[in-house]
């Protein structure tokens, strides 16, 4: 494996980690506030469809992004109404939304475009274009550092940089602002937050809606950045990998970055090689695909560090009468 191959694999790692990272941070906000979200997949999928559909009809990728975020937020709102207002089971709501997204996107796609559940392929204006960082071409010939800068770091779409910028931003919001402190508190002990005169319902709704925005960007990136259009079930379990990454990261932003990069790397290697030789043993590609899930189970089992979820996660808050 030469240097160029490594750069290429790392480059696709960054691309593949981007949707995971956005969805993972979405889950982070939601679950830190005490609302479990197994509907990350659903929100990404509707966002992917509506961003591609709007970008295809209007030719504007920014309108597409807006539509994707709006669709994802609509799903987030349903999740909020079901699990916060009506105190329904958050997991069941997530399951329902996953089906709804999977069925609805194909249904509408067939009705609008009549192409067997996909949107028309997006032209240049309908996609996010790669951005060249300053001096990327100038330093490309510098050995080692040149390719790292011009190939690996430069030449991604704006959403990739947004996703990576979200990591410090999320950390700052959660751990350095009043809103973040309250958000974390409401996920650990909503009763205490309520006693302090702060609305549990409003805090949880804002967390769920933030998750909607982030999943919307993730879905739009899938359809208009990574691919050129929507195809049926194109999220392909990424919402669940993001969920796995969230647990792997123990609900912390910087760890989430690491986990998503690791899972992105596994995906990139799996895409490139059918099977790889490791210490003389051929590892099948299916094992690489299953590895994120296996690692998550190991982490959850507490054999390698312990993942402790927010204490009030999954429970609706009932005000004392």
């Amino acid at each position: 494996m030469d240097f160029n191959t490594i750069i290429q694999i790392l480059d696709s790692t960054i691309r593949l980690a981007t949707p995971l990272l956005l969805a993972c941070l979405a889950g982070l906000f939601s679950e830190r506030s005490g609302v479990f979200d197994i509907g990350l997949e659903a929100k990404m999928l509707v966002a992917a469809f509506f961003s591609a559909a709007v970008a295809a009809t209007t030719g504007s990728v920014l309108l597409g992004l807006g539509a994707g975020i709006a669709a994802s937020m609509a799903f987030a709102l349903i999740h909020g109404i079901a699990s916060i207002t009506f105190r329904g089971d958050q997991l069941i709501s997530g399951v329902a939304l996953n089906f709804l997204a999977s069925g609805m996107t194909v249904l509408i796609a067939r009705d609008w475009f009549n192409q067997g559940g996909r949107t028309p392929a997006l032209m240049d204006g309908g996609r996010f274009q790669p951005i060249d960082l300053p001096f990327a071409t100038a330093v490309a010939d510098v050995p080692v550092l040149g390719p790292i800068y011009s190939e690996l770091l430069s030449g991604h779409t704006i959403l990739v940089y947004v996703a990576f910028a979200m990591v410090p931003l999320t950390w700052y919001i959660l751990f350095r602002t009043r809103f973040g402190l309250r958000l974390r508190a409401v996920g650990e002990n909503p009763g205490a937050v309520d006693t302090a005169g702060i609305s549990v319902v409003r805090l949880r709704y804002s967390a769920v809606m933030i998750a909607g925005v982030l999943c919307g960007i993730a879905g739009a990136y899938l359809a208009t950045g990574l691919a050129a259009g929507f195809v049926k079930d194109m999220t392909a379990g990424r919402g669940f990998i993001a969920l796995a990454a969230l647990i792997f990261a123990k609900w912390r932003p910087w760890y989430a970055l690491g986990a998503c990069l690791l899972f992105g790397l596994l995906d990139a290697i799996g895409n490139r090689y059918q099977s790889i030789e490791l210490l003389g043993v051929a590892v099948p590609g299916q094992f690489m695909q299953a590895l994120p899930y296996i690692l998550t189970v190991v982490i959850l089992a507490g054999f390698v560090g312990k993942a402790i979820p927010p204490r009030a996660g999954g429970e609706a808050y009932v005000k004392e009468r």
Partner: protein
Amino acid sequence: MTLPKWADVVLIPLINLLLALFVSGLVVLMIGEDPINAMKIMVNGAVGSTYGWGYTLFYATNFIFTGLAVAVAFHARLFNIGGEGQAQLGALGVALVCLALPWPHWTLALPFAILGGAVFGAAWAAIPAYLQARRGSHIVITTIMFNFIASALLVYLLVSALKAPGMAPESARFPEGTFLPNARDVFGMIGVKFARSPLNVSFLLGLVACFLVWLLLWRTRLGYEIRAYGHSEPAAIYAGISPFRITMITMLISGALAGLMAVNAVQGEAQRLLQDNVLGAGFVGIAVALMGRSHPVGVLIAAVLFGALYQGGAELEFETSVPREMVLVIQALVILFTGALDNMVRGPVTGAFLRFGRRPGATTKAAE
């Protein structure tokens, strides 16, 4: 919340279902079809002929098993979302049994296939159960992960060890001695004409499973312990019930039931192991258990309803421009309204009973 039992068991699920169907009707309207006509086509396609009935009950058999699997776990307040993976492993178990010997007759093969499906399904549920009971890992997350691991495992086995010669990633065809008699043969023996369909004797197996689950939950000590644990963990511990034992046993039963689905789907229909033998039935089980209020009779009714929905949806695609995915939307809305938005209906209904009815709490004991 005090409601008469009939309102809790019949009225509320019915309102939930009607709400789900109403919203589905709006969706059909949105894509430019007549909802009433669509409904007619679906009902006619599902139960209007022996062909329709055959497919409806064939799907229903799958959903009975996965629905019972979710329902049993619900009684211990465990949410087993891993029916999909457990059924996949069950399929592996059934296939290994069927391929192991040149079975002379299906009556010999069936008991062993049942055993294979149940044991493999239970084994796949055992690890998440153990991790929940001993290490406190959330069972919903681990079972989701195990669904993905199971699917990767099957894909791997079908391109390596179990792959039959040829292009398709599937196992060899099972020997003829394992083929289960289908409805056409059975009805033909008594001189009744029944169209060709994959409905087979596993349907009867499903009915037996419903009865056995009822027996287990309401007529045995173990069933009592499972329900007691589900109602209140501290009370169950105080009564000397071991949470570890109940979690393990409940999940093993649940996994075994999910695995049994493969007897119908793999031995009964496909007659070979495929990459995806479950096709979402594990998830439909969640909807079925929710609608059936986790009672075997409710599960049976809900399973037939969903079987009809699946078969009717196929007919709908055939006759109109409404694609098959409509079924997924209806299924999602049913889960949403009966599961997550239950309180939306329950609140007003309870209010109405308090206002207009006789005091319900005074005469009837509140249901769960």
